[in-house]
């Protein structure tokens, strides 16, 4: 035959057949690189135009130096959580978490707790009007030879010279009286939300904190969520355009979520200091349900407004700094848990901000004003998401953040026309759980990005956001600085929430006079009485 052979005896046919893969691989790389460079070009165009800085919040200062000596008031559900955030877990919880982890290897709650940073604090005093909880708190706070003293009253504990700061996890009607007493004694304060129970004490606490100069942090741990800083940057750079409507909500559908907590069997008039629990609430005989499920009554709690609206209000206030609304309208009723409670379990609030403006992509003067809407039910848990709606884009915000271009956007009109971006596919997503950021992502990536909402992240690691929030407070005590939810933010949160309850209970549209810093048309005492008065709301 005439086929040529090389030295090894391979024919040209051998070479062609042996190297059949070469052109295929060449073709693949040519196609891949064409695709990759065009994808990258789109991505870079979008990212450089949006110019969003996806940054982690700066860590609060060092925890070195002398231990901060704390006094804790209240060792109920939230008090136990706060103690864990500080590094002290009760035995029962540790046992149940170890059992949970043994059953399900994905359950890392105990592991996360053990790996939590040491905040260099000592629990020197505890105070709970229920003996069982007080004893548990003493046991939980006992570490390395330091055993907290159980105080019978919060006044005695606040007066103790070896206590630097007070953590308040008592019922809502005790927040302000305790915070004020602590501040007057020069003790720093971490107080759970809502900051106050009525209007007058909101002003009083505000003045007290300013006069005493102690560090006060309100317990809105959402402020530590890593996606929020990125969201703030995106909003400030006009990624959404003019925001006209914000939707926030609460959706729960179980007894625990409706504050129908367990009643401890050891509780009785002998083991509960009932009159101290009542405080400024109306005098009634011992009532175990009122004691354990106080969130269901106005005398002690603040309803969905103070309890859960405040979280969403503060989350958005942290992004937009929109402050107290001009007017508030609210309505609701007891529709899902008709069990004798006063406070509504379905509740909607609409807050108007007619002067809100942080920029626009359209002609001057066309856009101004915004509505903040909060909608809650304790009878359904469909997640409706927190949504910020702007002329140019929509932002869905949780632990991750996703931005969708609006099909009628002015700013992205060219991109939409050229199919650089499209409806339904995110313009931008930020997921602190992932390795980095992604300008344009697929539906699948979006699906994964939205999983897991219980924690926030630091350096890709899951961390309890309450731990970070308390750490920030402790850092301000140690190293100076202003906590992220200080008395200013707390004042706005409390006033907005109280306006919601006032509107709900009076059926009136409630107006705020920003220059006089007061609610229009009511005396403060009158408002206080309406807020805490008992009885179901009239619908």
């Amino acid at each position, binding site marked *: *035959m005439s*086929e040529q*052979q090389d030295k*090894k*005896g*391979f*024919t040209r046919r*051998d070479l062609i*057949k*042996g*190297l*059949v*893969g*070469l052109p*295929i*691989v060449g073709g*693949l*790389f040519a196609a*891949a690189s064409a695709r*990759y460079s065009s994808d990258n070009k789109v991505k870079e165009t979008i990212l450089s135009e949006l110019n969003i800085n996806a940054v982690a919040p700066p860590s609060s200062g060092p925890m070195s130096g002398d231990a901060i000596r704390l006094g804790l008031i209240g060792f109920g559900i939230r008090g136990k959580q706060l103690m864990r955030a500080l590094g002290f877990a009760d035995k029962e919880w540790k046992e149940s978490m170890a059992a949970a982890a043994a059953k*399900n*290897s*994905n359950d*890392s709650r105990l592991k996360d707790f053990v790996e939590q940073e040491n905040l260099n604090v000592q629990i020197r005093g505890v105070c709970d009007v229920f003996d069982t909880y007080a004893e548990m708190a003493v046991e939980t706070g006992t570490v390395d030879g330091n055993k907290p003293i159980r105080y019978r009253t919060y006044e005695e504990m606040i007066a103790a010279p070896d206590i630097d700061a007070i953590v308040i996890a008592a019922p809502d009607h005790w927040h302000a009286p305790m915070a004020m007493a602590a501040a007057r004694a020069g003790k720093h304060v971490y107080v759970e939300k809502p900051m106050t129970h009525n209007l007058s004490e909101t002003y009083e606490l505000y003045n007290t904190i300013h006069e005493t100069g102690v560090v006060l942090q309100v317990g809105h741990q959402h402020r530590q969520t890593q996606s929020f800083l990125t969201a703030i940057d995106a909003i400030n750079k006009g990624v959404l355009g003019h925001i006209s409507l914000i939707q926030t909500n609460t959706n729960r559908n179980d007894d625990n979520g409706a504050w129908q907590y367990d009643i401890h069997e050891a509780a009785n008039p002998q083991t509960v200091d009932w009159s101290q629990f009542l405080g400024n609430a109306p005098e009634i005989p011992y009532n175990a349900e009122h004691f354990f499920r106080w969130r269901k009554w106005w005398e002690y709690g603040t309803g969905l407004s103070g309890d859960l609206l405040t979280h969403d209000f503060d989350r958005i206030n942290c992004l937009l700094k929109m402050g107290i609304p001009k007017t508030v309208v609210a309505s609701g009723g007891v529709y899902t848990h008709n069990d004798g409670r006063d406070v509504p379990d379905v509740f909607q609030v609409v807050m108007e901000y007619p002067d809100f403006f942080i920029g626009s992509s359209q002609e001057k003067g066309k856009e101004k004003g915004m509505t903040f809407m909060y909608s809650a039910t304790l009878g359904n848990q469909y997640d409706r998401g927190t949504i910020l709606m702007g002329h140019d884009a929509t932002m869905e915000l949780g632990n991750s953040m996703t931005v969708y271009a609006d099909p009628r956007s002015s700013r992205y009109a060219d991109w939409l026309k050229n199919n650089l971006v499209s409806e339904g596919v995110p313009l931008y997503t930020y997921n602190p*759980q*992932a*390795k*980095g*950021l*992604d300008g344009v992502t697929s*539906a*699948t*990536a979006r*699906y*994964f*990005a939205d*999983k*897991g909402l219980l924690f926030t992240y630091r350096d890709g690691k899951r961390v309890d956001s309450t731990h970070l929030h308390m750490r920030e407070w402790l850092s301000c005590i140690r190293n100076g600085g202003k906590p992220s939810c200080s008395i200013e933010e707390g004042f706005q949160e409390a006033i907005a929430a109280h306006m919601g309850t006032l509107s709900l209970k009076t059926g009136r549209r409630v107006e705020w006079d920003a220059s006089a810093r007061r609610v229009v048309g009511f005396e403060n005492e009158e408002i206080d009485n309406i807020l805490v008065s008992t009885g179901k709301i009239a619908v």
Partner: protein
Amino acid sequence: MENYGYSKFQMIALVGLRLLIGWHFLYEGVVKLLNPNWSSVGYLMGAQGPFAGLFHGIGENATMLGISDFVIIWSMIFIGLALIFGFLLKPAAVIGMFLLALFYLAYPPFPGIEIDAPAEGSYIIVNKNLIELFALMVVMAFPTAQYYGIERFFVKSASVPVTN
């Protein structure tokens, strides 16, 4: 050179199948290599079904996740190149089948298991991962690399005298 008794049509079908699967693996590997943000974490954490715990465990452990990312990228590239060029075909097919079995088990299309990741088709028991797994088995059972592929050179230089 022997033709293993394959007809021309059979040879086209077998080599074609081998090249297409190779292309698929190679591109999946290259795409991941080129994307600095790619990680298997989302895929692992979203795993469903009886082996979900195993996949979640890998996803949650930083070291295991790093190994998983590395192994997935480079084994896919290796399998792709091996299938396309026609060398080390058997080990490549075995590793590929193993990977596909893992992908199949991470999101098993079993009745009663809700896979809520978006899919482009409808599957019950059988999905494209399983089909590709068996297609790889065919590629392995009916070798073609000694005819179309680099293995041809080794076979020839080792045993086949040049006579024609």
